[in-house]
């Protein structure tokens, strides 16, 4: 078998595997276009004969999707901003030195990374209610998400800072820069890409966050899209086309970002998580 034949065969197999793997996504998009009866047809239609584009508009109106998405966006942006402000400096210091204190700090951060949100929410909720933070629930959720995701961010960004040569910073110091100046003008710009990719990963996580929002935010008009989707899915629901339309509107922006930045995201993720 020639080399090109082999490559074509492998590529075809890979595409088939990817198609099988991505079938649930396809099914979401297709279901969102079906009528109530087409949705429950046996055998199911794998291609909608009569696509119902108006479902999107209907669901957007009736479920207030815009408001939910705005809340998700607000929470995710707040969490990412807080994490970036606090986490970048921490990652920088942990990357710059190698001594026993750094090891201890890293160990603590890795330990905090693993605490499951659904187990931490009980003390967080009780504590927040005692200090009155529940009066501003979206802010409380931002604080909780920031604490949950910051360790992951620090680990990823630290890997980026490790790849910035220290000589550049030392040269800037010799030229009369202060530490702040060298950090701000030399190190940060060099690490910008890695920080951006990590921030995007954190953003995606925060955008889909559910446990904290579900437990802390009681008022419907402040809830993010994940909680909205949860309350849309009653135990005996049969409006699956509407639910899938909702899910589509929720997830498509994230998928678009992912497909555009796929290469960077994958390499950023692998460099921090394991390598």
């Amino acid at each position, binding site marked *: 078998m020639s080399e090109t034949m082999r490559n074509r065969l492998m590529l075809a197999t890979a595409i088939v595997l990817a198609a099988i793997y991505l079938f649930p996504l396809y099914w979401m998009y297709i279901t969102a276009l079906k009528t109530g009866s087409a949705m429950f047809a046996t055998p199911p239609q794998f291609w909608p004969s009569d696509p119902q584009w108006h479902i999107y508009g209907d669901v957007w109106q009736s479920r207030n999707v815009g408001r939910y998405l705005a809340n998700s966006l607000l929470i995710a942006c707040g969490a990412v901003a807080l994490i970036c402000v606090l986490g970048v400096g921490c990652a920088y210091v942990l990357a710059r030195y190698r001594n026993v204190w750094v090891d201890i700090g890293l160990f603590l951060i890795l*330990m905090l990374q693993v605490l499951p*949100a659904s187990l*931490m929410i009980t003390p967080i909720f009780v504590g927040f209610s*005692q200090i009155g933070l529940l009066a501003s629930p979206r802010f409380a959720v931002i604080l909780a998400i920031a604490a949950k995701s910051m360790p992951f961010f620090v680990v990823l960004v630290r890997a980026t800072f490790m790849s910035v040569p220290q000589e550049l910073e030392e040269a800037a110091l010799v030229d009369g820069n202060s530490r702040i100046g060298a950090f701000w003008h030399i190190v940060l710009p060099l690490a910008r890409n890695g920080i951006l990719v990590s921030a995007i990963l954190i953003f995606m996580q925060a955008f*889909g966050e559910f446990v904290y929002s579900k*437990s802390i935010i009681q008022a419907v008009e402040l809830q993010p899209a*994940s909680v909205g989707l*949860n309350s849309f899915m009653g135990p005996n629901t049969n409006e699956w086309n509407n639910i899938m339309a909702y899910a589509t509107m929720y997830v498509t922006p994230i998928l678009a970002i992912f497909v555009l930045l*796929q290469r960077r995201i994958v390499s950023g993720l692998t460099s921090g998580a394991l390598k």
Partner: protein
Amino acid sequence: MKRLLSSITDGKGFDIALVAFPLGYLFLMSGLPLLYNVVMSFQEVDMFSLGSFWRPFVGLKNYRDLFAQPETLPILYNTGIFVAASIAGQFLLGFGLALFFWTNFPGASWLRGLFLVSWVMPGLVVGAIWNWILSGDFGVLNFLLRETGIIDGNIFWRSDPNFSLWAVIIANIWLGMAFNMILLSVGLSAIPKDLYEAAELDGANAFQRFWTITLPMMRSTIGAIISLGLIFTLQQFDLFAAITSGGPNNSSNVTQYWAWDLSFRQYDFAKGATISVIMIVFVMFASVVYVRSTRHEVRG
């Protein structure tokens, strides 16, 4: 004062300030709740004492009550099955895919990256999609299984106590498989190619090469991935909320969902805290294994 200021702009104070704020924040938002959790598990907490810090201590009563409940052991058993089956499925399928893409053909890395979409999707959306795919009468999975002759009648994935846990496991394997594959690919690409060339010259077949080179060389990666898998499966909450809500009759309930359910559905915060403490000890144990297995890599 002046020395302090100049140290912050120019010396060690700068580094300490950069680290102190985030660590302080993490201590306030993760460390204190962790301690508070332990304290609450020894207290009597109800809706009336929720607002006050001074609640009656009851010793080990919460722990004793918890293990006296009839559903505790089945739920712990479910958690074990969920973790073991999810990790096994994610790891084996992920390893298979990683080996397949490792053969390297044009487009391999792009297609491989595409698999990671499952990982960036909100858990609730993944749960909603699988809820619909797994639905009993009209679910597409039942249709495919029927057509291929694997099953005769429909499986009621979400409402049959024998299958409800497996419904969540299937969704969780789909969700975590790609992440496993990507990390395993990183490990595979770090194995020096000349090892295989040497083995091939010595006449080792593909299976022997896999068994004597790939697996031993991947040992630390595999250890890290299994412990990461343990950490991630014990964090999985959204799929339960979206697919079965722990039901029917706790047949698909696991500890991480149960802890939340006790606190926020039954308002039994003390029990919720108690089960959290038990599980967090488990997770911490897993994370020590993880940190140890990645230590040399993380420290660079």
